[in-house]
């Protein structure tokens, strides 16, 4: 190997700062066992869509908006009007924007140039020698990372004690593959590499002749070439930082990828140096959105404004008269868009029913240990640290717990018998024929789907009375539920009932950390049924009538059935009413299923929806949050009686009862942010599925128990599978950034934005749109950024009625 490059020297601090920034430029991905939606543009929320487009084009060749035809067809259909274009153009902050609407239309009609990433060294080497080096590097990195991050698929685990970089070096110095394919001396190169990742990064950066301005996008690009593996490392960093620590794993991944670049550079230096000089200069050049990107951003904004007209029109229709009598049933559901359909159905069943919307973890951020389990489940929004700990059941179930563990361990031993080297032959010879029965059972979907049950959870350690009272008061105020309690108050978490689906947790409750929501609901119901707690909150001005019973429930979003946790409560005088409640829920389920069946492929009617839950071949059991486009925080009267088409997050909020706007602050900094993650995950998985989508479900191969790869292996895929946003004929999700409508004084919202830079960036750069509803619940004010608002015109103008799928 010859070294003819001039070495630059960069201060170690600069290099590591760039590496740290690159780590934060990629989104984290949670393991599939408890996955939540993540905003794929999390690292770019400080930039506008067009600026992000410029960055992601450079580092990964990604588009950040739909193809032009998508917008053009909406223009032609009249769904986007000239007024929308005009308004979107006027709102654009970019210098490169078209001068007029007609210029904009002209520009929109031209096909945009496909974004191209700058080549990596691996790509240049590949262009030179014809061998697929980027593919090989991805293959080798993936082969190692899959083993390193494995959480229990392989019986013979890869060592991971010493951290990513050291363990990778141990593997790479043994792996003969690179040399078989012609990368001479790679194992030696790795063996001689610096012992610490930081030094390896600094050495490679300097050998590649990079100046400090070139580092950010180059490092970002290298992390992007490692797809979901780098994002999984980013998740580990996220968790560490949430706990107040840090984790070098992303940086170590970067070092690994840089060692490959360095080795390829050394081997092909003479052939690629000239080109590389231009590429690294391009990396050092400042990012500026092209005219194409600015036009795209304006078109996207126009499409969103069109949708906002529709939302405003829905809110402008006359609401039904609010009920004046005390409700027999109050049912609180998660803000999840799927709840909207069910709540509307439930309210239509009986006038004595009132529903509420609140984040599905019901304010109890619990670290939970399930029945017969050692695993600590973080059933809370991933932005938070756990506030309480809980376990399933008390001392009375100890024996049952032990027996269940024996059964689970025996089952596990049997599983290992099945997979181990020699015993797998004995297993097949002895048990193979049994699988004929299992094939029949699963082919016909004969196995009953069970919703989570088990002993009632309890807080462990238990909270003192004052802590319990405090928690109860906080939650009730956050729910804006401080008076008018019904006789039965249902607290319904939600979960999906799917089988053989690696992405099952993506259908569960995001606010519960990707678990189903029954644990949090049961904990809160127990808390609020406690007479001592009721006394305590009464002293704080929240009078819960003695005949109010809180009942925990789980809304199965796949089948629209609701399971009540009756064993937790003493129904007593509520027995008859509880019977009515079950009847109402069953009726509402039928109504909700009938509505959902219209959107689902191969579901002719209500009766065919439930079977999808048990079909092991079903790739679209339900649509989850596809289609989401609005977040409304207001009293239910503002939205009741109208169809929001299962596309709106609904959060109960009454600002008049919110002294000091503490609840508003909570809503804007937690549920709104979570909703933005969901909305933008759908957005990213739709506009850039190649990088931010989970790929084709038909090819999914579960890796390490944490993620999926497509086919044989390769990069782990984060984001939603294509089948989750597309029904086979068209998109099931319209990629629109979320419109957040809050009934609250503008000054209060501005004040909160002023104090929360991260949240403000989301609105200022329009990753979210913010609207203030007026006294009558009409969309009245639009937040235009920089703490400014403008009046929304033509509130009552009815727009065309929009079908749920675009």
């Amino acid at each position, binding site marked *: 190997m010859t070294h003819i490059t001039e070495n630059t020297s960069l201060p170690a601090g600069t290099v590591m700062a760039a590496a740290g920034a690159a780590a934060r430029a990629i989104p984290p991905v949670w393991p599939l066992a408890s996955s939540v939606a993540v905003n794929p543009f999390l690292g770019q929320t400080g930039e506008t869509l067009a600026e992000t487009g410029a960055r992601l084009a450079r580092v990964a060749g990604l588009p950040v908006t739909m193809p032009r035809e998508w917008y053009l067809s909406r223009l032609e259909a009249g769904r986007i009007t000239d007024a929308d274009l005009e308004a979107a153009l006027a709102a654009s902050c970019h210098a490169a924007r078209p001068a007029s609407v007609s210029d904009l239309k002209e520009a929109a009609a031209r096909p945009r140039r496909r974004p191209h990433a700058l080549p990596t060294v691996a790509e240049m080497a590949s262009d030179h020698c014809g061998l697929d080096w980027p593919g090989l590097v991805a293959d080798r990195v993936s082969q190692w990372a899959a083993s390193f991050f494995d959480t229990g698929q392989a019986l013979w685990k890869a060592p991971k004690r010493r951290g990513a970089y050291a363990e990778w070096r141990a593997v790479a110095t043994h792996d003969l593959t690179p040399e078989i*394919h012609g990368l001479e001396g790679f194992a030696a190169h790795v063996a001689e590499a610096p012992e610490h990742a930081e030094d390896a990064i600094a050495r490679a950066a300097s050998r590649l002749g990079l100046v400090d301005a070139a580092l950010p996008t180059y490092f970002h690009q290298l992390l992007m070439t490692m797809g979901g593996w780098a994002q999984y490392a980013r998740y580990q960093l996220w968790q560490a930082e949430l706990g107040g620590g840090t984790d070098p794993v992303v940086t170590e991944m970067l070092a690994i990828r840089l060692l490959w670049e360095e080795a390829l550079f050394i081997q092909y230096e003479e052939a690629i140096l000239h080109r590389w000089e231009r590429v690294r200069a391009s990396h050092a050049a400042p990012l500026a959105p092209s005219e194409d990107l600015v036009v795209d951003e304006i078109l996207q904004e126009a499409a969103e404004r069109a949708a906002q007209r529709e939302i405003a029109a829905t809110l402008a229709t006359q609401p039904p008269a609010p009920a004046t009598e005390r409700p027999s049933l109050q049912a609180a559901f998660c803000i999840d868009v799927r709840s909207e359909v069910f709540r509307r159905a439930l309210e239509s069943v009986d006038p004595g029913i009132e529903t509420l919307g609140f984040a599905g973890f019901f304010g109890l951020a619990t670290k939970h240990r399930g029945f017969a389990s050692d695993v600590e489940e973080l059933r809370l929004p991933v932005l938070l640290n756990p506030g309480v700990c809980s376990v399933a059941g008390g001392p009375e179930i100890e024996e049952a717990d032990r027996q269940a563990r024996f059964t689970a361990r025996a089952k596990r031993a049997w599983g290992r018998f099945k*997979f181990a080297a020699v015993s797998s032959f004995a297993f097949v010879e002895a048990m193979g024929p049994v*699988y004929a029965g299992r*094939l029949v059972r699963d082919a016909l979907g004969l196995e009953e789907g069970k919703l989570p049950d088990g002993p009632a959870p309890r807080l462990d350690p238990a909270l003192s009375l004052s802590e319990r009272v405090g928690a109860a008061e906080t939650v009730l105020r956050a729910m804006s539920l401080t008076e008018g309690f019904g006789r039965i108050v249902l607290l319904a978490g939600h979960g999906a009932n799917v089988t053989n689906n690696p992405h099952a947790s993506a259908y569960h409750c995001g606010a519960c950390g990707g678990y189903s929501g029954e644990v949090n609901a049961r904990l809160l119901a127990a808390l609020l049924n406690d007479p001592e707690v009721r006394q305590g909150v009464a002293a704080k001005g929240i009078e819960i009538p003695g005949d109010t019973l809180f009942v925990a429930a789980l809304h199965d979003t796949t089948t629209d059935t609701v399971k009540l946790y009756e064993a937790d409560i003493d129904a007593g005088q509520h027995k008859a009413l509880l019977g009515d409640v079950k009847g109402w829920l069953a009726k509402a389920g039928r109504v909700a299923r009938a509505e959902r069946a219209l959107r689902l492929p191969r579901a002719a009617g209500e009766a065919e929806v439930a079977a999808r839950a048990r079909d092991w*071949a079903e790739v679209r059991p339900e649509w989850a949050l596809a289609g989401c486009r609005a977040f409304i925080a207001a009293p239910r009267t503002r939205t009741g009686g109208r169809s929001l088409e299962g596309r709106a997050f609904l959060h109960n909020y009454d600002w008049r009862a919110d002294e000091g706007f503490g609840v508003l602050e909570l809503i804007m900094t937690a549920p709104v942010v979570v909703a933005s993650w969901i909305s933008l995950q759908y957005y990213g998985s739709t506009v850039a599925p190649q990088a931010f989508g989970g790929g084709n479900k*038909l090819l999914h*191969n579960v890796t390490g*128990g944490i993620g999926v790869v497509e086919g044989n292996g390769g990069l782990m895929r984060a984001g939603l599978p294509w089948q989750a946003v*597309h029904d086979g004929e068209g998109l099931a999700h319209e990629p629109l950034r979320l419109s957040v409508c809050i009934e609250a004084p503008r000054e209060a919202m501005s004040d909160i934005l002023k104090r929360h830079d991260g949240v403000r960036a989301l609105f200022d750069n329009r990753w979210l749109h913010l609207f203030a509803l007026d006294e009558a619940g009409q969309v009245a004010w639009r937040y235009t950024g920089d703490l400014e608002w403008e009046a929304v015109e033509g509130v009552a103008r009815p727009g065309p009625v929009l079908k749920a799928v675009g």
Partner: protein
Amino acid sequence: MDVFSIPLLAPAALIAAAIAAFMNPGGRPGLVPRLAEGTAIAAFGVAVVSLLVLLTQGAGTGVVAGVATRLDPVSVTMLLLVSFVGWVVLRYTATYLDGEARQGAFTGWMALTLAAVLLFVQAGSLAVFVSAFIATSVFLARLLLFYPERVQAQRAARKKFVTARLGDASLIAAAVLLYTGYGTGDIGEILAAARVGVAPDAALWAAGFLALAALLKSAQFPTHGWLTEVMETPTPVSALLHAGVINAGGFLLIRFADVMVLAPGVLAVLVMIGGFTALFGGLVMLTQPAVKTSLAWSTVAQMGFMILQCGLALFPLALLHIVAHSLYKAHAFLASGMAVEGVAATRRPGPVAVPSGGAVLRAFVAALVIYAAVGFGFGFDGKSPQAIALGAILIFGVAYLLAQGFADAAPTVLTQRTALMSVAASVAYFALQTGAEALMAGTLPATPVPGPLEWALIVLAVISFGAVAVAQAMFPLWAYHPAAAGLRVHLANGLYMNAVFDRILGGWHIRRID
């Protein structure tokens, strides 16, 4: 048409479904998915009727329009198996592929591949046998390249193509030699002649080529690589491949078992290659973090074990293995989406109790005691030494289950349960083996008395499987030692066979756009 041609209706039904599918090759092709499933059910019905014919009329060969079909316990077993698995995968396909742009074409190739396999297992003449064998592989290749733009799929297909064509050539050579040797293309007649000891030189060569074709078809070392890389296509293809197609190698050895036993040297080679592949595949499987890849390596190992059984002339047991493995593996692939939950479930009940050396020793002794007890229950006399040795190998596997329960940290209840499961597993497979032998008696040749070579191989097999079983049981005690780290890397890469193969075939070269 005589009754022995009835099985021909099974492939005919699926071909009809395939034609309908190819007429609607696109997405959401109307009734095609249900029609395909319906014809698979019909094919299963045909297999059941064939069984009735066999029970009432005995074995025989029928000819319709020059297509000879053989109806005997071996073919009926395979017909039942393949049509059943075919029903399951086509039913799965109907839902799984919904909304896919080329769902109709996919369904068509699935039906056609199944038809070819159904024809292959009932072939009554060499011509039908060879044609169906080649057709299976050609149709399957279309399914493996269902996403033709995927470079990984192309890379695997290239390796598969080379292996498959070599396999085809070997089988053609074997067929030609058999025809020359016995002067007939009728498989029933060839087998009958071989059974009474007619052993022309050509037949011995034919046995060699049959063995070669089987090794190539059933992904034996070192040509196993393609099998571990063909998950580049929708899951039902993997299920069909691993349950219905890959065991064609074993089936052809079983079909020509009477010829194979004439060539002990060839059988010895099968023992060595099959045994090595079984251990190699099993060890590599342990290192694989992705579920389908792990299942593919498991198939490599299982096919190795099945070839080992053929090499030991334990043909009824090999057939049992094919049936048992197919059912298990079809289910495992189709249910592979459960892996996330599966891994999560293993973490819940706390750490695994690691058995010490003493516990492992006790487990092996206990396993041998179980073996002796169950063996005497079923009767050792009349069993060939080969069968007894195979039983010992399997009991080593059971010892692993026992060892987990014997670990010092394991609670008594766990010890009892694993012991109970061990006994149940032992009884189950002895019962199944006895049943298989009884069903195939008279159809498949008896295991010959071992000579010195066979004895040597038996001892070698028992020792090497025993050694791996002990290593496996003591796994956590050594596998994480730094000295084993390098071994793990080499095994995880399948000893680089694919890398070398790719390099030779230029698998990583990119098609230049300019």
